[in-house]
């Protein structure tokens, strides 16, 4: 994907083994955007998750998973990723679910658009709805998945800050062993996650928010249809006119999407004020490690992060039932 510039991923693809089929063949670094998909591979399209896990075990170290393919196929076309087997989750219908009965459960291959359009998500998980809606193109929203967005682990993945701020956890399975971990523990670096070889993300769960919870997501790119320069999500839980809980997460300002815990505690138990919010912004600005790249500069990202955190906080506070902050 666009967030998958070698720069973002430390010069390597988002996973998958590299292999040179032909000894006379050069691995090209530039001019790899071809009309066709040059790399050769086997496509496996299991109908159940168990089959998928089994294929993964059989081809351990030689296979990658494909959900919507909007990151993976771009990586393969651009030859950042080479692999012998592609295991597609596309035909496992159970993974497409978006379940809102109690907690929000998003199956691994639920599309960005299905989540953006879900009426419960739009009402109760505003940050997530806004993050999904902010994706740069409708076709990518239709094809791409929330699971793929997280597993691709771009620092600029848009659903990541929203889900971090909503305290999501991810459910991973290897077919033999299952585990559930907090999303905040999931990312290890650009393109890197705690997923071990053979493990699949099965679903994402987000605790249902209380009535006095509000959340918001904001993103700025160079143009609207773009990857984020900075993205911010804030969740606030209100108790009367005071902040009971607050979670702040940012994208594209560090090697992974991350929560800024140091800033979250600033307003706990307090009435939010303009100066309080600007303190939060400052703490965020101190904690992040933005870089200069093709999309923006480190200095601007730091500045913008502060502004967007303030804006997102105010928005979340309003949604939590709080008033205008003065």
């Amino acid at each position: 994907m666009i967030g998958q510039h070698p720069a973002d991923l430390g010069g390597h693809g988002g996973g998958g083994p590299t292999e040179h089929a032909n000894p006379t063949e050069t691995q090209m670094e530039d001019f790899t955007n071809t009309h066709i998909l040059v790399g050769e591979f086997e496509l496996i399209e299991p109908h159940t998750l168990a089959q998928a896990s089994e294929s993964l075990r059989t081809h351990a170290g030689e296979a990658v998973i494909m959900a919507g393919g909007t990151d993976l196929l771009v990586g393969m076309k651009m030859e950042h990723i080479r692999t012998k087997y592609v295991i597609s989750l596309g035909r496992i219908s159970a993974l497409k679910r978006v379940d809102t009965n109690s907690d929000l459960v998003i199956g691994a291959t639920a599309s960005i658009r299905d989540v953006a359009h879900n009426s419960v998500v739009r009402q109760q998980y505003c940050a997530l709805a806004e993050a999904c809606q902010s994706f740069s193109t409708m076709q990518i929203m239709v094809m791409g998945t929330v699971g793929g967005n997280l597993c691709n682990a771009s620092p600029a993945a848009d659903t990541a800050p929203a889900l971090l701020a909503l305290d999501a956890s991810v459910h991973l399975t290897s077919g033999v062993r299952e585990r559930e971990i907090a999303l905040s523990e999931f990312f290890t670096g650009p393109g890197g996650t705690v997923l071990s070889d053979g493990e699949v993300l099965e679903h994402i769960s987000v605790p249902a928010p209380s009535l006095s919870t509000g959340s918001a997501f904001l993103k700025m790119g160079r143009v609207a249809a773009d990857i984020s320069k900075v993205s911010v999500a804030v969740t606030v839980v209100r108790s009367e006119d005071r902040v009971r809980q607050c979670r702040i997460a940012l994208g594209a300002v560090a090697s992974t999407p991350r929560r800024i815990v140091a800033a979250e505690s600033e307003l706990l138990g307090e009435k939010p004020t303009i100066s309080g919010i600007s303190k939060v912004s400052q703490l965020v600005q101190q904690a992040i490690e933005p870089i200069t790249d093709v999309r923006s500069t480190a200095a601007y990202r730091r500045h913008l992060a502060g502004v967007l955190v303030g804006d997102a906080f105010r928005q979340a506070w309003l949604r939590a039932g709080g008033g205008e902050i003065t």
Partner: protein
Amino acid sequence: MTARTINLNVNGEHKEWSVAENDLLLTELREREGLTGAKYGCGIGECGACTVLVDGQPSLSCLVLAQSVDGCDVLTIEGLARGGELDPLQIAFLDQAAVQCGFCTPGMVLMGRALLNEIPDPTEKDVREFLKGNLCRCTGYSSIVRAILTHRR
């Protein structure tokens, strides 16, 4: 690599294709079927020129493996006009001069059609949101938005 036979429906016609894993839907439509209305503009999802509808959903055929459309319904721009009758949206594009070089047009028209199928009465904001990923360097987009909106009425 193994070629596999897949069955699909393209513009209402049943097709049986023998395709390899790394064959892309865009290339198959263009080279095998001669349906060159879907264009290569970037090959990596950034322009929308290759848009086709797969089971009614707008998809970027440059990022779809041919084998994964086994059993699907694919609609390309060539299939929009039925029996030589232009789709009303195609007429609106002509009426509003929403076509200049025309290279983005197939993608734009199909996106407009997908939108109208979903929201028959879209607002200008809906149109801009739905087509935000389709690039056009000629028109400045206004005439395209106008075409989709006037069609609504």
